[in-house]
């Protein structure tokens, strides 16, 4: 049986470390990471919309 090299210790399966306050976004109105990701996607949609409007205004 092959042994893993010293720096390649396989990490064991198991539950993730208990979430602590440090793992939360800690932003006003954005209390979960899902909300942060939705906010980012919303910003992306807003940028695209603004770019379309900007091009259309001066076409």
């Amino acid at each position, binding site marked *: 049986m092959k042994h*893993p*090299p*010293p*720096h*390649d*210790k*396989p*990490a*064991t*399966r198991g539950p*993730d*470390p208990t979430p602590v306050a*440090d*793992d*939360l*976004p*800690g*932003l006003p109105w954005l209390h979960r*990471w899902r909300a*942060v*990701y939705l906010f*980012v*996607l919303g*910003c*992306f949609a807003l*940028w*695209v919309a603004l*770019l*379309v409007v*900007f*091009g259309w*205004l*001066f*076409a």
Partner: protein
Amino acid sequence: MSPLDYLVLFGTLVGIAAYGIWRTRGAHSLSTYFKGDQTTRWMVIGISVMATQASAITFMSTPGQGYESGLGFVQNYFGMPLALIIVAAVFLPLYRRLDVYTAYEFLGRRFDAKTRLLGAALFLLMRGLAAGITIYAPAIVLSTVFGWRLDATIVLSGLLVIVYTVTGGSRAVTLTQKYQLALIFGGMVLAFIVLLARLPAGLTLTDAFTVAGGFRKLEAVNFSFDVHQRYTFWSGLLGGLFLSLSYFGTDQSQVQRYLHGASLRESRLGLMFNAVCKIPMQFFILLLGALVFVFYQFEQPPVFFNEVAWKAQADHAAGPRLRALAADFAAVHAEKQQLIHAWLDAQHAGNPPAAAQARAAAIAAQAHSEAIRTETRSVLHAADPRTSTNDSDYIFITFVIDHLPHGVIGLLVAVIFAAALSSKASELNALGATTTIDFYRHVVRRDAGDAHYVTASKWFTALWGLVAVAFALFAHLVENLIQAVNILGSVFYGVVLGLFLVAFFLGRVGGTAVFWAAVAGQILVFGLYFTLNIGYLWYNLIGCAACVLFSLFLQAFIGSRGAAAPVTALS
């Protein structure tokens, strides 16, 4: 440049580097040398990630893109927000949980040593060559424009970045990037303000946008499904997603930046900062280029922006033809200028038919100008085939030299160098880390102490810096170098991303299957590259898909013998 410009240029660049060395002086452990002291806040991480991606090319070529093609190039970044969300939600927690130094160390833990070394080797090959380009690309433009010696420009800027990267490690890179990016943004905003101030009297910002829009420079989003069009919403979203996922998720020069975070939260927020800010930032730089285009509708631009190359041929056999073309170009420009004034006057007078008529005539005159520029390029190329016909990299620097005040010129040249140094420092730091952690510590010397590895990593970082400088010195021997490196990156990036996607999402696939799948996928990509004629960005997708599918097939064939999947994103 005046003595004031040189003072600003050297003062800012050397000052920032010296500050980085001073602040990070003293002994380092291996962890602090490669990951800093892991107390970095999200804003600094975000800045570091942004500064690593924004090379000198960003600040020289992107305004040129805006000048020539308008804002459409911004669509290339449309896949980035989604890619960064995936990196933050899936890649980053695993990297932090396993406390790795390099992304390829994760492959070793998830699969086996050979897969780790394959991923690390592909990275070293790609990034080692790209590091040479990072320093060569601005040096060739600036040495041409200012008449500096190319070799001295490459060696001096290369040595500066080697010194502070080797001395201070990853923390010095992050620290200097903070001030370099402040310099970059300050310089670009100043250029924007001066540009607006230099527009003709009576021309409002709305007029400037009207002119830019009239010449179709403000069409940023194109929803066409035509695959032959270079920039569309869909190609940016899909191609950009894969490219950004490879770059931010698997390229050590980026992974090392966000592993600096004081916590998972800080690293994630740093990535989200980029996901929100990158598109507006690129829009701003492209808009600067579009406004330089408007500026040159009222000022006579050169017929070819690489004026050194033009003058070199103007003194030889092609001279009479080049001068005749320049005279034609000036005449058409004067006619176009009158038509634009007539167009704006009609617009202000509330006479749409007259405005439309003048605008159509101005567009026709612009097409005539472009035809003269194209012919000038042909004459230059015929006179000396070594002359690059692409002068878009010279547009912004020509505007800076010819029309900005002294002091500001020095500041903007410093901006270009700061961008080159900040991205090169990250690259060298990542190359040193990967060579030390994935090869030296893993294969050559496994049982040494921290101090030994720190010393080794300093030597490796310096060695990669010298390799990059040497590559940059001989880069002119390779034709169309930047494209060659981009092609090289696309040919390898797909397979590397495939390795990581299998690692994260396909827990039943083991090391042997994914290793041979990556080798087979890479051979397939090479084969297709030499037989098919498709855009090189597609190889990102093909390499990734081949690696994933082959690994599933091989795992089914091998069975459970090769599978040992301790950690995946789904575990």
